[in-house]
């Protein structure tokens, strides 16, 4: 691709990104917002491809546009898709966003040109990876893999552990696990029979409650 074509693609992708971002903010329908966020991820993946970061683009497309969209849709199925009207004025958040955005844009003035060979990022270990990974790691044409899995094996190990920790956290919060052997309800313990489903148990407890309040009502001093 020539320089001009790359610039046209850049502009088109960035404009699409901006339109999607504004649309996400403006919509009150969370279903639409989730789908637009998926499109946002996909357009970002396209931008990463233009910047020759294909591994990152691949991950962004698979995780950002794929799995996280599905997880958000699952959440919407639980909480509903209508966003309630905000109760405060948007002045303060708008001010914070404008100041932060302005600072970031101001910061880009100091950023070295994209892809320049003299950039600080290319001065230290990057040159070593590109020159010597063939001898040290072997014939792996995708140097990203050599860096990720071997030179920085520690980091990738940490990332894998983080993903595992995320699973443990979500399961602790969301999963319901097996039923306990007995449950405490309405003042005394109930044995849970083998093979009873959770729905049956809840219905049984609700019946019990009605029963208790009608027959033994007013025995609150134990609890």
């Amino acid at each position, binding site marked *: 691709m020539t320089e001009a074509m790359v610039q046209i693609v850049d502009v088109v992708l960035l404009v699409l990104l901006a339109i999607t971002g504004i649309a996400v903010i403006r919509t009150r329908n969370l279903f639409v917002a989730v789908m637009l966020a998926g499109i946002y991820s996909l357009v970002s993946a396209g931008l990463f491809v233009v910047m020759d970061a294909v591994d990152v683009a*691949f991950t962004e497309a698979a995780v950002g546009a794929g799995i996280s969209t599905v997880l958000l849709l699952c959440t919407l199925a639980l909480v509903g898709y209508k966003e309630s009207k905000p109760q405060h004025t948007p002045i303060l958040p708008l001010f914070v966003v404008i100041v932060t955005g302005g600072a970031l844009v101001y910061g880009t003035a100091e950023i070295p040109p994209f892809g320049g060979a003299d950039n600080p990022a290319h001065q230290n270990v990057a040159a070593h990876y590109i020159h010597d990974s063939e001898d040290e790691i*072997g014939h*792996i044409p995708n140097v990203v*893999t050599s860096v990720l899995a*071997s030179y920085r094996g520690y980091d990738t190990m940490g990332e894998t*552990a983080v*993903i595992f920790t995320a699973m443990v956290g979500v*399961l602790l919060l*969301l*999963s319901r696990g097996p039923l306990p052997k007995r449950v405490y309800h309405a003042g005394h313990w109930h044995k849970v029979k083998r093979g009873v489903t959770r729905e049956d148990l809840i219905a049984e407890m609700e019946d019990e409650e009605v029963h208790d309040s009608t027959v033994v009502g007013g025995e609150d001093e134990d609890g």
Partner: protein
Amino acid sequence: MKMDDRVILRVGTKVLSPFILLFALYVQFHGDYGPGGGFQAGVIFAAVFVLYALVFGLERAMEVMPAKVAYACGALGVALYLGVGYLSMFRGGEFLNYSYLFDPEHDPTHGQHYGIIGVELGVLVTVFGVMVALFYAFAGRRRIDT
């Protein structure tokens, strides 16, 4: 919509699933030569089961891939990664220095090659298990109407 109305979705899912799984393996083992690797492959692998659950329902998906297996995968991948690290340590090198996995005097890149395959497999297994487990955790809850 009734289950029976979605013939194209059901048949399409069944036809596409093996190809998506194969593509995930391609992404995994082609990661040395092009974009890809354990993380992306794990997500694609998990996407097959997510797709299956969306089309055929969560219960049938849990018969194909029980939640306990997914949890076990999430832990096994980390163990595999650590195992490769400790193995290279016991062979005389540093933790995660794959050059020592095989005879380092002869050709250290040999060990590097298999070490990278090993840890990438660990990443694949963990990411796959975690993604499926997260999906089950989110999709398995009923809506509570207040």
